[in-house]
């Protein structure tokens, strides 16, 4: 085996020569399904009584260098989608392509590691996602240990300090433990960890939801700067549409395991096409006392993903539903360039 000794040499290993960043998405999900079985335990055996259809036929793509916002209410399958892309879960059906390669096809360990190196994830909860018994130095060094085992300790250490500075932390923070940090600082550590080995894509699962607004602004600006510095591609998961609007180039709106609408950010607000997107936008309380809105108040709750409604999953709550909506599931279609909608009667 060839000994690779410097960081740069590792980067030179490229398994994705066939992939063309200009014409192909960096991540492409095709009819992705992730169902979690619900089983009933008895003394002798356990049997599967139902399926939680957390992700149920997701189609979406991510272009190199962009930020795709993934928005939806809790439980709609955002985190699960990200976890499948990161290979933390096996899909029940469908495929995940990374630079044109189906990541769930058999591959060599080298290929596997190469994808892991280029694709990192920042987790939802800054409090539980960091191992409390490990110092920040070790937490951020870990990706180097995995991906660059031969790298000299000194080099790893200096790279950790470099990355800490990038996310706005100080050298002395390296020797502290997670519990000694505030929520915002922990989120910086999570980002540093994801960033350490210079990935191309970072999946950010609600990176600011647990933070105070003044700290949230710091992290949003930090992510913006890092994206420019490192030419990063982001998938940014959030349930706050104002945050999504602020960070995203394109937005995908998710409901009950499916993508309802995917479009450039401006169009989501100017040319909202899907009735669910319309309702979501209208539900947000605006921080301007002069705006008096005629709200669309959706009735009822989000149905359970164990027994999602037939046809269009939104039909029991939709103000536009017709007979066909509970019989035929609308497909995600491109109704105008780069504007994808799954609805039988889109608003435009």
């Amino acid at each position, binding site marked *: 085996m060839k000994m690779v000794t410097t960081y740069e040499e590792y980067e030179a290993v490229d398994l994705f020569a066939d992939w063309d960043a200009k014409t192909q998405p960096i991540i492409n999900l095709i009819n992705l399904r992730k169902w979690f079985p619900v089983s009933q335990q008895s003394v002798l055996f356990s049997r599967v009584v139902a399926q939680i259809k957390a992700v149920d036929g997701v189609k979406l793509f991510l272009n190199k260098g962009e930020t795709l916002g993934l928005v939806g209410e809790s439980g709609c399958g955002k985190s699960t989608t990200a976890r499948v892309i990161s290979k933390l879960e096996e899909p029940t059906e469908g495929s995940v392509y990374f630079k044109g390669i189906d990541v769930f096809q058999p591959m060599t360990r080298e290929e596997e590691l190469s994808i892991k190196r280029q694709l990192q994830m920042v987790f939802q909860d800054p409090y539980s996602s960091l191992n409390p018994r490990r110092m920040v130095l070790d937490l951020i060094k870990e990706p180097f240990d995995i991906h660059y085992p031969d790298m000299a300790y000194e080099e790893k250490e200096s790279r950790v300090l470099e990355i800490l500075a990038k996310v706005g932390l100080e050298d002395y923070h390296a020797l502290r433990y997670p519990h000694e940090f505030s929520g915002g600082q922990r989120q910086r550590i999570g980002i540093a960890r994801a960033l350490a080995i210079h990935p191309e894509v970072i999946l950010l699962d609600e990176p600011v939801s647990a933070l105070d607004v*003044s*700290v949230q602004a*710091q992290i*949003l*600006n930090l992510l913006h700067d890092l994206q420019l510095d490192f030419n990063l591609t982001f998938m940014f998961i959030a349930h706050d549409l104002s945050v999504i*609007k*602020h960070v995203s180039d394109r937005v995908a709106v998710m409901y009950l395991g499916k993508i309802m609408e995917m479009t450039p950010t401006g169009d989501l607000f100017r040319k909202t096409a899907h009735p669910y997107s319309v309702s979501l936008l209208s539900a947000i309380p605006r*921080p*301007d006392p002069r705006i008096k809105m005629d709200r669309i108040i959706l009735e009822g*709750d989000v149905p359970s993903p164990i027994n999602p409604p037939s046809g269009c999953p939104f039909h029991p709550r939709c103000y536009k539903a017709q007979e066909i909506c509970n019989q035929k599931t609308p497909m995600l279609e491109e109704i105008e360039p780069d504007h994808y909608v799954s609805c039988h009667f889109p608003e435009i």
Partner: protein
Amino acid sequence: MKPILDVSELSTYFYTESGVVEALDGVSFDVRPGEPVGVVGESGCGKTVTGKSILRILDKNGSIVAGKIFYKGINLVDLPDLQMRKIRGKEISMIFQDPMTSLNPIFKVEDQMIEVIALHRKCKKDEAKQIAIDSLELVGIPEAEKRIIDYPHQFSGGMRQRILIARALALRPSLLIADEPTTALDVTIQAQVLEIIKEMQQRLGLAMMLITHNLGVVAEITKRVHIFYGGRVVESGATEDIFLDPKHPYTRALFDSIPSLEKDKTRLETIPGTVPRLINPPKGCRFHPRCKYATEVCSRVRPPEISFGKERRVACHHFEELDLHVDEELFVKQATVKEEV
């Protein structure tokens, strides 16, 4: 109009192993009859402690160390326990921040509503149950009569929040303290619950203290607002005035740091550092370590609360010189601060 609730110079401390937490330090504000008032601020600034101080239900290690809380002219701070008990739930009731913990999972909804009603109204169980059912119907629980015997986990998050509202309103209190009543909810459910709160407030002529960090919710529901920072009130006034023209550097920075649907994708203004710890909090103005206008005096002297206009109050040494006034039309855009400052 005379306020129904008048909190003056309230200080509440907690005694912990690592020191004294000065959770509230000379907090003054009021709520008028029938008026929805917002209490706004970031995590840990003392919003919940304020609510709990008013009802005198602080955790054991905490106590009110100074100040007065006048409710309908009576100072609650030194009211005997027995009388205080008559006020809780009947005159003033509170919806707590965490919907999961504030309904006990092992008791049926009726068990969690009827007893309090029977106690205060001195009525029979049946009568109390009817009051509970009426209240549940009022907030839009379908088939309340049947569902009152269900357990909390049999309801969705939005429904549980309605039950809490129904319970808080069952005895028709004059003042409702609602602590982040929609924070844990999804936006479409939040919209439903806000609608209920708004309707109840208007229909019952409730005075309401709405605690939240969501500026959208405040703008929608309240007429006046008190901005908290680090255990103190930094700015008070009519909601519309404060949103159009925030005066205090913290309020200003808070507004600029939220991404909004109206703003374009720009860099957000940030406030450096984090919210202060309240054990040994910063001297002088508690915001001074993070304030870009801080001068020497700010780190030494607590800024006085200066009143002006109809009902505006700002606690800052420099706000008049800063002239942070923003053009009406441009208020959602970046404010430019005068060069000479």
